[in-house]
């Protein structure tokens, strides 16, 4: 599974695993959208702590989920990006659309 989904009230947490590129983005998007459409959460957390590689397809994935969450009146949060992913997040300016949160206990 390229993504593990954890749900609680008003919240969907998607923990992406492995490499996030154009090849893998489709399946990840599908899983996330399925949960979001079913639960219509207030907050979608996308966790990157277990992502070993990401290119701009990952930015596209976040932007697409931001648009979906806007439609249902919710927000997107980007959690625990490793340094290489943080670099590409900064270039993209995605922090204007989604908060980037680092929770220390999940960092190794």
């Amino acid at each position, binding site marked *: 599974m390229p993504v593990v989904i954890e749900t609680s009230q008003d919240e969907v947490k998607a923990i992406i695993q492995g490499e996030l*590129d*154009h*090849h893998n983005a489709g399946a990840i998007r599908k899983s996330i959208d399925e949960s979001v459409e079913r639960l219509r959460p207030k907050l979608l957390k996308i966790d990157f702590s277990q992502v070993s*590689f990401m290119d*701009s397809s990952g930015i596209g994935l976040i932007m*697409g989920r931001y648009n979906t969450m806007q439609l249902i009146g919710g927000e997107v949060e980007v959690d625990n990006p490793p340094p290489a992913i943080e670099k590409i997040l900064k270039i993209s300016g995605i922090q204007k659309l989604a908060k980037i949160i680092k929770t220390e206990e999940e960092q190794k």
Partner: protein
Amino acid sequence: MSAPINEMKMVVESRSINEGFSRVAVAAFAAQLDPTVEELSDIKTAVSEAVTNCIVHAYEKQVGKIYITASIYDNQIIRIKIRDRGCGIENVKQAREPLYTTKGGERSGLGFAVMESFMDKIYVRSSVGNGTTVTLTKQICGRCKDD
């Protein structure tokens, strides 16, 4: 520029499964320059962007060949050429603008912007109907700064 010290050439089909293979193969070749983890990740990301462009745009409705050449020159310089024989880009300047995309929704329009910021130099040559060549250049400092 003088002849390269070492060179690797490969051809892959424009199937998305080859995105991962291409970036890892180029990174493995670049490893002889003793790059830092960050430099290696920069190269992987830039190659991934260029190869994805070939698959998503150049060969949108077909499977074509992607020609990758990685060459090492003096002063720890690596030059990576990624060439396709696909549709070509009508307006390269516009294509290179951050956030410009012809695909909307799930594509960020950041491919060229990422290549530009992760590599030292990027050169794009394109001809409509004939294909595109993207040349990425980076000097690998690796641990040379410690010397």
